[in-house]
């Protein structure tokens, strides 16, 4: 009786190990979501930083140029005329 129960338990353990191994083997080889997310974040951050720098510099340059030009032109013109 005890021996039969022990053998049955052994069979169950062997089947469980086999099923687990098969499950892991079947699931292996697929894409990794963490790696995909990490890769996406990295690529997106690099591209976003580049785009932000470019647009920020471009728009800032234009705005600063316009403002500085108008400001300096008035002063310099008045000074040149008054001299």
């Amino acid at each position: 009786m005890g021996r039969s129960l022990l053998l049955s338990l052994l069979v169950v353990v062997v089947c469980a190990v086999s099923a687990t191994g098969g499950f892991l083997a079947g699931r292996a080889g697929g894409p990794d979501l963490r790696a995909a997310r990490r890769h996406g974040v990295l690529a997106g951050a690099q591209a976003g930083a580049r785009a932000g720098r470019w647009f920020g510099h471009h728009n800032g340059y234009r705005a600063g140029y316009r403002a500085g030009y108008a400001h300096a032109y008035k002063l310099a013109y008045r000074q040149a005329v008054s001299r």
Partner: protein
Amino acid sequence: MRRRRRRSVGSRLAVVVFLACACGLVGVLVGRAQRIPNAQAATVQSDAATVAFHRAEAAAYGAAFRAGYHAGWVRGSALARKRARRAGRAAAHAHAIQAGALESLVAAARNTLAAAYSPVSPAAAKHPDKCVEVGGGLCEVAGPAITHKACPAGSVPDPATDSVCVPELLIEVEQQAAQAAAAASTAP
């Protein structure tokens, strides 16, 4: 008896191996069904990239805008100063020329008026017929076509008819007025 027992053990072992293989096969099938599809991974990657893109762009924009603003301000100011100095000098120069031309015009007009208001000598007053009315209250000395003599000093014959002598002072005033008008039209 021993042989039957061995056969029984062998058949049990075969059943166990079969069960193990069957469980392993079921595990493989279930695991393959649970495998993450490539489309889901691509979606996750794309979503993560989009979110990271917007965050990084917003974070980098402000600093880049300030740096670009400063650079643009410096560049625009330098260029504006250069152009404004040039324009201001040109305007001042044109203004000075215009003012000078107007002063000359005023001086010439004053001289003309002074000459017109100068006293007439008694000898010249005896010969009123030497004056030719040209309209507008102006009376000019008769020219070589009428008197057959040269014009008096300070006047030149009218190039069209030679019938009157035009004072050089009037010609100068006309030239000064033309210069003043030209300078006023070219000034910004």
